């Protein structure tokens, strides 16, 4: 999410074909949910699809706005629920997570990466400098005699020195552990919230693998 400079236009700001107003009106009446994958593997997002038939049950009451499963690239209006996969590993993750916090009533950390940093946070034990040398300087496939190049550019975000769980950056309301939590667990949480019940994840549904 680089800052917009002069003459820079994002595709989602351009004129798009409008939705059929009656279809859009039906969606607007539903509970609005936004989804984001930060530093994760997309597994928790796909575990959302692992709800199987219950996905269709949920979609009767829920509209999905921003998500990597739609082509909506920013949260278009206030949402009731923000579904967050992955931890925070770069400046873009920070901006996106803060934007979710400002625009969602309830934010849920879904999966080990969002809850604790997960496997990507294993890099917190390693010196950054060593990692850098390993990947781009000492890589066994590096091009011999080529100019040593390390990615750094206005169009790619700067990374953070450590990987953080989401709640160390913004307030998170609920947490679903698991790598990933399975479809039934995700459905239980969303179904409860959508139907006005309290968040209630029984210990029997907590997973740590």
């Amino acid at each position, binding site marked *: 999410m*680089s800052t917009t400079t002069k003459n*820079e236009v*994002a*595709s989602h700001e*351009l*004129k798009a*074909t409008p*939705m059929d107003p009656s*279809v859009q009106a039906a*969606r607007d009446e539903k509970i609005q949910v936004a989804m984001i*994958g930060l530093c994760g*593997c*997309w*597994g928790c997002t796909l*575990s959302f699809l*692992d709800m*199987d*038939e219950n996905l*269709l049950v949920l979609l009767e009451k829920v*509209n999905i706005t921003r998500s990597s*499963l739609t*082509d909506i*690239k920013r949260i278009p209006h206030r949402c009731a629920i923000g579904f967050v996969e992955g931890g*925070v*590993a*770069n400046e873009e993750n*920070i901006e996106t997570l803060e934007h979710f916090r400002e625009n969602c009533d309830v934010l849920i950390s879904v999966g080990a990466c969002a809850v604790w940093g997960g496997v990507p946070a294993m*890099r917190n034990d*390693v010196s*950054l400098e060593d*990692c*850098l040398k*390993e*990947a781009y300087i000492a*890589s*066994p*496939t*590096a*091009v011999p005699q*080529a100019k040593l*190049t*390390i*990615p*750094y*550019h206005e*169009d*790619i*975000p*700067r*990374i*953070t*020195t450590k990987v*953080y769980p989401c*709640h*160390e*950056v913004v307030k998170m309301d609920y947490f679903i552990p698991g*790598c*990933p939590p*399975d*479809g039934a667990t995700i459905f239980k949480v969303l179904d409860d919230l959508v139907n006005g019940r309290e968040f209630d994840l029984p210990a029997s549904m907590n997973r740590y693998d």
Partner: protein
Amino acid sequence: MSRKLVIDPVTKVEGHGKVTVHLDDNNRVVDAKLHVVEFRGFEKFVQGHPFWEAPMLLQRICGICFVSHHLCGAKALDDMVGVGLGSGIEILPTAEKVRRLGHYAQQLQSHSTAYFYCVVPEMLFGMDAPPEQRNILGLVEADPELVKRVVALRKWGQEVIKTVFGKRMHGINSVPGGVNKNISTTERDRLLNGEDGLLSIDKVIKYAQDGLNIFHEFHEKNRKEVDSFAEVPALNMSLVDDDGNVDYYHGKMRIIDKDKTIVAEMDYHDYLDHFSEATEEWSYMKFPFLKDLGREAGSVRVGPLARVNVTKAYSASTPLAKAALERFHDYTKGKANDMTLHTNWARAIEILHSAELIKELLKDPDLQKDQLVMSPPEGAWTGEGVGVVEAPRGTLLHHYRACEEGNITFANLVVATTQNNTVMNRTVRSVAEDYLGGKAEITEGMMNAIEVGIRAYDPCLSCATHAMGQMPLVVSVFDSEGVLVDERVR
């Protein structure tokens, strides 16, 4: 006035990508790029861990092709403990077949997700349909029966994976030298015959055929647009068996040109002799190429389109896919197919191929045998291993070394999406020139055409960001109370 157009983020793909297009005063495209904007660092932080953890940790690279990473790691470990394929003492048939079952199911599930959830809505509604519509929500509104079948198909693939690996994602089955579980007759029959809420294999094959027909019908109606969309010449690479046909689990790496002449062929253990990877400042994803040919001529395409280009014919034991592939080959009269959107055609064929392969394999009694792990003899430990598979997105390679105590000292991963980096960037450029070049007014739908080109590769941008980059860091992290957590200026 010159302009910069940005797609941020690229959606309906896995992981984090961004596109930039620069237009000059006369609206000519001067530059167009796909940037991969995340990185993680698996190759470094897996070091020091016990070698047998690698397939468990490294499958967390990707939530859609985790089985491929798990098996690629397992194959590298087979090598390391001295029972790799080709070593003379090899893993047992039951182990290989159980792994293959999981692998084919992964292909079916991954391709079905990419094809039906991300590509089909665009075929049915159009590239410039409202962004809110051209997705699974739009499909639910337009054709709920189709969505029910798609959900059931994906579910079946995931249930096969769960049967093999214990859970639908990031499970465990492969261990060095074999697997830790076979397939019982009850499990087999459930997958073959289905049950309440689970398809039978014959229904799966039927739905896969229906999926392929969606492409055929779409192609019939939009032939010119589909065929002329980003025709991007490239070499094609796939793992092949001794007959020169794709083997998703094992084989030698073969690379062919437009005329299907073999330009390179190698044992994957020798990959370092053949491949280099260039780095650019503007992306965390590297650019692999064949050393002999250089970067411009030696970049390869991998994945469904490459595999069907390389493959001569599928086996008679998968007759529906065999016929579908013949029709595909006839279309370009024996030449390699470079039409980007035909990748979706190839993907739909591979869904059918995987379903037929699974049906054949499920009937194999070796799956029920209980000799699961080949124990290496004294002194077989080699301390080094290379694994390779055809992952859904193309040729995937893991290479590890470990010390005598068994801790990992080195890991290198060359993933499919990275192999496609140059070809994807050529596609972005080609679509940008065709759809944006010379246009004063640019719409969202025109920009989406670029994403349609990228989605054809079904890139896994998380997979491509296993390596860590160096960069000047001036990032501050504040917690929810506004307290500074991290700040660093390098």
